[in-house]
């Protein structure tokens, strides 16, 4: 991870997370999704992204405990994996940050197990801790759920 790498921050419940901006295709305000009856709860629904149908995975359902407070106006984050877009529902999208090299640390043991699987690093900026998620693992977690 180079020093100049930029991260897009996002919020899932009380967690402040980030993904590499290079993996982000786009960010959409939440649109009407078509629910898929009988699909796992981690599937938020189907999205029409300019003629392409995307399955939107609800990261909050796969990462947080049931019964957590969800945002009224969630955002859709579209990441790229193997050239294919993958859409995720998150509570909010924050700034793009550019951490310095000494702010990037390996993930500590204290992160809840479900999140730790997806976390490749943390960014420690003063009192702000940001979990750096790996898009690939996030996608796998969503699909496997």
């Amino acid at each position, binding site marked *: 991870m180079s020093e100049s790498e930029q991260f897009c921050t996002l919020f899932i419940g009380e967690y402040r997370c980030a993904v590499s901006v290079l993996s982000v295709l786009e960010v959409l305000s939440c649109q009407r999704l078509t629910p898929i009856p009988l699909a*796992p709860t981690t599937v938020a629904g189907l999205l029409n992204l300019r003629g392409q149908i995307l399955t939107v995975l609800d990261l909050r359902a796969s990462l947080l405990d049931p019964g957590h407070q969800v945002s009224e106006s969630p955002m859709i984050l579209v990441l790229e994996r193997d050239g294919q877009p993958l859409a995720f529902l998150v509570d909010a999208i924050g700034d793009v940050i550019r951490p310095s090299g000494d702010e990037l640390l390996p993930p500590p043991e204290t992160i809840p197990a479900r999140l730790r699987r997806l976390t490749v690093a943390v960014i420690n900026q003063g009192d702000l801790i940001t979990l750096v998620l790996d898009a690939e693992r996030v996608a796998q977690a969503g699909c496997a759920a």
Partner: protein
Amino acid sequence: MSRDELGEELREFLIESFENLDRTENDLVGLDLGADNHEVLAATFRTFHSIKGACGFFDLEHLSRLAHEGESLLAVLRDSPQLLGDPETQLLLDLIDGLRRYLAQIELTGGEGDEEESDLCKALQAARAYLESGGLARSPTEPSSRPSQVQLAPNIVVFTPTVESAPTSPENSAPLPSHVNLLDQAIRVDVELLDRLVNLVGELVLVRNRTLQIDASLQDADLSAAVQQLNLITTELQEQVMQTRMQPMESLFVKLPRLVRDLARSLHKQVRLVTTGGDTELDRGILEAIRDPLVHLLRNSVDHGIESSEERTLAGKDAVGYIGISARHEGGSVIITISDDGAGIDPSAVGERALRLGLVSTESLSDMSDRERSELIFLPGFSTSEEVTNVSGRGVGMDVVRTNVEQVSGTIEVNSVPGQGTTVVLRIPLTLAIIPSLMLLVANQRFALPQLSVVELLRLERESMADELAFVGETLFLRRNGQLLPVVDLASLLGLREATPNYALQLITIVVVQLSGREFGLIVDRVVDTQEIVVKPLDVFIGAIGVYAGATILGNGEVAMILDVAGIASCAALSLEEVAVAELAGVVDEVIEEELVLLVDAGIAGLIAVPVYEIERIEEIDSGALECLDDQPVIQYRDAVVKLLTVSELLGGTRDLPDSGPIRFLVPSFGVSDRVVAIREIVDITTIASMTLGSTIIAGKIVRSVSLAEVLMTELGGGHERV
């Protein structure tokens, strides 16, 4: 002569020859005299040789002779490449032009014409004679010193008046433009590129739909005009692009005669194969998918269907067996029929065998109709051949055929008369990319249901609901024509609603679908309309849910799931065989009762029996009182305008109203007040068993039982009015 009028082989010969000649011409022009030209000359030799070879096949005498002279000259040159000089190269180029003239003539008229290129032939002979004799003395390094050049040059001018200019400049060369046309008509395109085009057009169709909706809400005249144009062009483009993926059935049919002949010989049978409708076009992907099933069915016909010549003669049949394969379009699908005049399928033999193989139980077998028994051949692991032959293999059989056909959303049906033959009917959609679908509303969510699997739409009114719907064990059944139809409530199946049918509703709508020849009903909230939808694939883990065949984008930009009938059946644990056979047996017994029916002559629909309770009145009007509204005959009846429908059109046939004289019609006794049904004559009033479905025999005549309520409901749901 258009490309269609030329035979397929001749066309290919022309295209190939033109291509070869072009290449040979380039090779010859690029020749470095004096270098080792052996390979080029050998290739040139092959070009002429293959043209000559094909000429014999197409009976082209002149072309053959010219190619032969060229070949002979080349044979000499090939062995002694050092003899090739400018005059010879020029002569060969002229020869190429001569060949092209013949080919162009064939392309235009289908024949080579009467003109002989005798001068050219003579020049070729002379050149060969020269090379074979004195040419040997010539040194390849000083070709210009030969006297023969002078000798040959005038010849060239004489025999090629039309191509005096350099043959290498195509714009001046007379025969070139026409063959360019033929080459242009057929270019090779990567199938993936076509698939991408089809996908892109699919997107365009969706954008078009969206634009149409926006336009409707804005009401801007300029925009409307532009959108209308976009609409037309998109539709045209869609048709044309789909067309690029279409291939005629012929491409599959051509391989069959040989297959049948070989099979028949190895089995010591005589079989005549007749294929019709080879020009019927089908998406190449689907064509690919039905190749194996078709071959399998054909093998079955030859192996199991057609009897040996002796047996056939004994049975009073022609010693030569007949197998017919036909393909035709019918309402958005392709119907492929494979029929033979062989031994047919013996339902009891099929039943016994299924029993022996442990595929059915004795009890269920005894309850089956002949048709149901015949359909046991579709069970996995079923094979009727007593011995295992290398022709039809073993075990794997009709179940694989059916699976393959259903994979492309097709259906298969077997009709057989023991001793007279078997007919297998495949119904295959034209394309998988865009399918006509019924748009359903279930718990306020839209779903698409491919129309191919829809048999009919039924509506139940509240009063009759309790009578007609009943639980047997866990499964809900609908009484229909005295038969029990398993019914699934889509909303509860999809987990969208808890309760099974909502009896508080005024009406419930049931979509009857068929799967593998079995029918079952789906309770939906509403049938919205029908739409041509573009099928989009789903992520693997969503597809794994099993009840969805894909998704599509609606005109308003929303996404709708496409339901998979087979998936729904298995999800609802509709063990259809079991339902139809075991559980039903007991229940059906209860509902057998005599029913009073009116026997009616319904014109081309034949004799029909209508339950008397469905008829309120029988009336008669003069055909002069008939009026037309939107191409639909209407009459004034009791101060209201009612539609006059004929039995035939209600049963899916054509309208058949008499041109003159009185028209009798039945006024139905139930809810539908704006429709009456025209008939010809009242024949009788009689009783039949109320569970009689389909047809029955009364007084020696075949009579079809028809429920007016049902056919009118279906007609009502069929698009004339919103349900």
